[in-house]
């Protein structure tokens, strides 16, 4: 179980997170929704210390960590138990798809090269890209890069995975292949927190949906509740806007 309490973050005078709390059960898939600038991504980045929160507590594995004062060892510990999937893929450009996955297994988890290679190949196969093992990121499409990114995350066997808008940099026709891989991850029972703008995907994959706006959690609940019976005015407005946008695509 991951618990976040009273997370706050300012960039200069701009208060991005205004007291956000969230707890996620083991194996649960939580989707964060909200307009841009609502703090979803910042919140996600605070969880594994890519951004240092100004205040807040992270409880994980019976350990309570002060987000502001966390020590190097605590930060490494969280990062080594989690994985992050980036909006713009974040694959190491100087390494092939296979080496990208092996990197963490060898350097961080200290596995032997042969073992890492085997795990990496398995996980590439799992995302349907075994034949691209020796390709560099620059030789892969966006969708393929993101699938390698997901394979890299899953191969590390993390306790939880954070997804930061994993499909928003992709061409529309590449979104589907990436989403179906994320659904596969969800079926594995790994705890996931996902920031996304893909509404139908959110509805399908989420156990719980959190709607954020202006740096606070406005509403949360089961996907059907939030999507079809939103209680808060702000949620309704947001959904109306988003669904309208979806209409244009059709």
């Amino acid at each position, binding site marked *: 179980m991951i618990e976040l309490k009273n997370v706050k973050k300012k960039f200069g005078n701009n208060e991005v997170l205004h007291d956000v709390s969230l707890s996620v059960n083991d194996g649960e898939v939580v989707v964060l929704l909200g307009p841009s600038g609502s703090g979803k991504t910042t919140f996600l980045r605070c969880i*594994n210390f890519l951004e240092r929160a100004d205040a807040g507590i992270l409880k994980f594995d019976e350990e309570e960590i002060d987000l502001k004062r966390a020590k190097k060892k605590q930060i490494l510990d969280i990062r*080594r138990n989690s994985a*992050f999937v980036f909006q713009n893929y*974040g*694959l*190491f*450009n*100087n390494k092939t798809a296979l080496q990208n996955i092996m990197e*963490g297994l060898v*350097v961080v988890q200290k596995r032997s090269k042969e073992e890492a290679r085997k795990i990496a190949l398995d996980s590439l196969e799992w995302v349907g890209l075994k034949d691209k093992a020796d390709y560099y990121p620059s030789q892969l499409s966006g969708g393929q890069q993101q699938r390698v990114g997901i394979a890299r995350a899953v191969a590390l066997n993390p306790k939880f995975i954070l997804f930061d808008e994993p499909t928003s940099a992709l061409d529309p026709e590449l979104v589907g292949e990436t989403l179906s891989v994320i659904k596969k991850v969800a079926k594995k029972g790994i705890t996931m927190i996902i920031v996304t703008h893909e509404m139908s995907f959110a509805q399908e994959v989420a156990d719980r949906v959190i709607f954020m706006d202006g740096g606070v959690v406005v509403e949360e609940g089961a996907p059907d509740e939030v999507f079809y019976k939103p209680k808060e005015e702000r949620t309704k407005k947001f959904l109306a806007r988003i669904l309208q946008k979806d209409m244009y695509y059709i």
Partner: protein
Amino acid sequence: MGDYFSFDRFLVRIGQITPYVLVNFKMVFWAMLIGTICAIAVAILRLKKIPVIEQILIVFISYMRGTPLLVQMCVAYYGIPIVFGNLIYNAFGINLNRLDAIVFVIIAFILNEAAFLGEIFRGAILSVPTVQTEAGLSIGMTRLQILFRIVLPQAINVAIPQYGVDLIGVFHNTALAFTLGVLDMMSRARTLGVSTGHTLEGFVVVAIIYIIISLILKALFYLLEKKFQYGRR
């Protein structure tokens, strides 16, 4: 046309001048070797943005970029013995005034390269997107591991072409060293010209040697560049 150029004298000059290219190589070698190490230090110190040190480096770099190399050589040649002469004599027993001019030329090159290459390296490191570092952090790598395994290999890819251009530039600039009395190709061509009254052949030989070696260096760096492309064409 008169007797300005004779092919026979040209051939003789080749044998007389070519061995002196080693003196130019010597200057390039030390300038690049120590200059590169200093440049890495300059780049890292500037990226760390340490107060005072940063301002000193900015002044140093703008001096190196804002003055001609020949002026820097003269300042090193005449200035270093005056400023550090006593200190070095007392500490190591070396009389700077008796040192070969080439030492000061190399020092001038090293300082110049520390600035120019330092900026090249700094730019190359900054050109690596932050998400590369973040991706490394997110899988639990340490900053040092990320620097050596992810950021520097990608920065090298950016820096190699510029490093090649810079190296060739240094090689060309060694032609200035004869003005301070270094006995290199230029100085040899000049003395031969003065003593025989036939100047042109010697300088043509020097020019041809410069062209050939520049082309070889260019080709080598082209190959090196290809090696670090990571799939890009």
